């Protein structure tokens, strides 16, 4: 505990307080932190705790597992399953294509202008999900979309189908647009960490290119690749805006199920079902991000 009173002259800045130097707590130096912690308490901690607590409460505030049990209803399970399919498939597609793009970009060499441009463009595109992205794809693949009309007039193919863009298949296509750049952002550092010396060492020992990749490159990159894939999964699982704009009715995926639980309070107990669904999302994302952190630690071992 540091001994610092408000009136005493300030200790040399940055000197860590000696352990056990006294029993009085330096209350004064913590006061300036109050606005920050107060703000986060109100606008981050309270909402999160509210979700967790309300998920196991009934309308009168008593404890119940009814809301959590409602998650096992067919509609809720179906939404969760669809969400997992959506997040899983876009994570795999995003990781494979993004990994490929990342490799192509890194192979340009560190001084390449194209490489630097590509990485900053990917930074922009990875944040691009939401309303604008939904509109971009509606303008391309919607009923009177540019590509739809072009293909309709020649060679006469109808890619509009029966509106697949506004269902789960459409979401998969659209989500890839921000998943691939996100993969580039998170995976490029791992590829950059692959040192040329290792390649040279392998070659000196007589390895072919294929052998190098099979026995050195891929094993080294696997944790980073899987970790990035998990990050992509969490990213898609929690995404709301893009889906909300594309799918205006029905709730094929969890986030949209939360929306209908929030907005249609006609059905009894829907409000608390919303909390339970939100809790489910927190749990899924927390598990995935926890696994991601573990893999990241493994990657960090050889990245320095």
């Amino acid at each position, binding site marked *: 505990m540091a001994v610092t009173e408000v009136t005493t002259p300030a200790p040399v800045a940055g000197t860590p307080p000696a352990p056990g130097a006294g029993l009085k707590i330096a209350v004064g130096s913590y006061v300036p932190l109050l*606005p920050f912690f107060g703000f986060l308490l109100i606008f981050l901690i309270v909402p*999160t705790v509210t979700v967790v607590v309300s998920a196991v409460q009934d309308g009168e505030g008593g404890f119940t597992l009814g809301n959590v049990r409602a998650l096992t209803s067919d509609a809720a399970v179906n939404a969760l399953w669809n969400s997992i399919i959506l997040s899983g498939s876009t994570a795999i597609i995003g990781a494979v294509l993004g990994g490929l793009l990342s490799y192509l970009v890194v192979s340009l060499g560190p001084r390449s202008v194209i490489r630097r441009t590509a990485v900053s463009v990917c930074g922009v595109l990875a944040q691009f999900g939401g309303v*604008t992205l939904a509109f971009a794809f509606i*303008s391309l693949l919607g009923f009177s979309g540019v590509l739809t009309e072009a293909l309709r007039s020649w060679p006469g193919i109808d890619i509009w189908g029966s509106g697949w863009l506004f269902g789960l298949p459409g979401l998969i296509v659209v989500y890839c647009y921000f998943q691939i*750049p996100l993969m580039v952002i998170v995976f490029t550092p791992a590829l950059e960490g692959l040192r040329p010396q290792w390649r040279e060492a392998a070659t000196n020992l007589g390895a072919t290119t294929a052998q190098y990749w099979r026995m050195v490159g891929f094993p080294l990159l696997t944790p980073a690749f899987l970790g990035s894939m998990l990050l992509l999964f969490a990213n898609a699982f929690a995404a709301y805006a893009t889906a909300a704009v594309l799918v205006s009715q029905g709730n094929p995926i969890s986030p949209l199920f939360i929306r209908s639980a929030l907005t249609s309070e006609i059905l009894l107990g829907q409000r608390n079902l919303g909390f339970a669904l939100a809790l489910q999302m927190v749990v899924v994302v927390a598990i995935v991000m926890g696994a991601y952190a573990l893999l990241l630690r493994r990657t960090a071992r050889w990245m320095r």
Partner: protein
Amino acid sequence: MTSTRGFRIARGVGLTLFAAYFMVPLLSMLDFSTRARGDEGRTFDAWRTLVENEDLREAIIASLLLAVLTVALMVVLLVPTMIWVRLRVPRVSRLVEFLCLLPLTIPALVIVVGISGVYAWVDYLIGDSALTLTFAYVVLVLPYAYRSIDSALSAIDVFTLAEAARSLGASWLTVIARIVLPNIMTGVLSAAFIAVALVLGEFTFASLLHFDTMPVALVQISKTDAKASVAGALASIILITLLLMVLSLLHRDRVTRTPGQES
């Protein structure tokens, strides 16, 4: 890396395909929003709607104001706290970092679900304006803002600066506002740019809390005038991209100005 001729050609083709994939939806927005009725010609009616439509104009103004307010509150709340933690109470630095990065793991949708009680109070105390979204948005931009300010702070010697200023009789407020802040300006600026980009595109909070910001208004308009909504979306993309490009220039600037220092 391998650089045989065959590989270079394959790489060129691959990169071109990726570039086309990312460009096509954007170009189609431009084409879609300027397409005239029938098949011939171009019209910019949809783009004109953006400024002429009363609701949309108000929503755009609300979004721009929100961006400014979010940046202001973020700077006031975060910068002094981070400097203070570094100088005086380093023992809470891990806690501050944890809290700042927390919004990355708690989905925005979850915060919205839980925040209605808090917003009932905000509504009661401050009023029912779209600008109250500022509070929620500061939470959203926190992780990004924290990272860029933190890296700017790590790149300078805060302790020596603060010691020198203190020994010359500067108050802590002076140290923070007039000594440290000017030295981490690039970090604060990049935090501000990211904040603006995020706020201008944010939809989850605004739509579920029923506030009319630009993205919400665009979605409403899309039901009657798809072209105008696509034009608005493209306009916001162009604006956000420009902001983020400036941001990456700032970053490069910082890297070249402090060679050998970890940024």
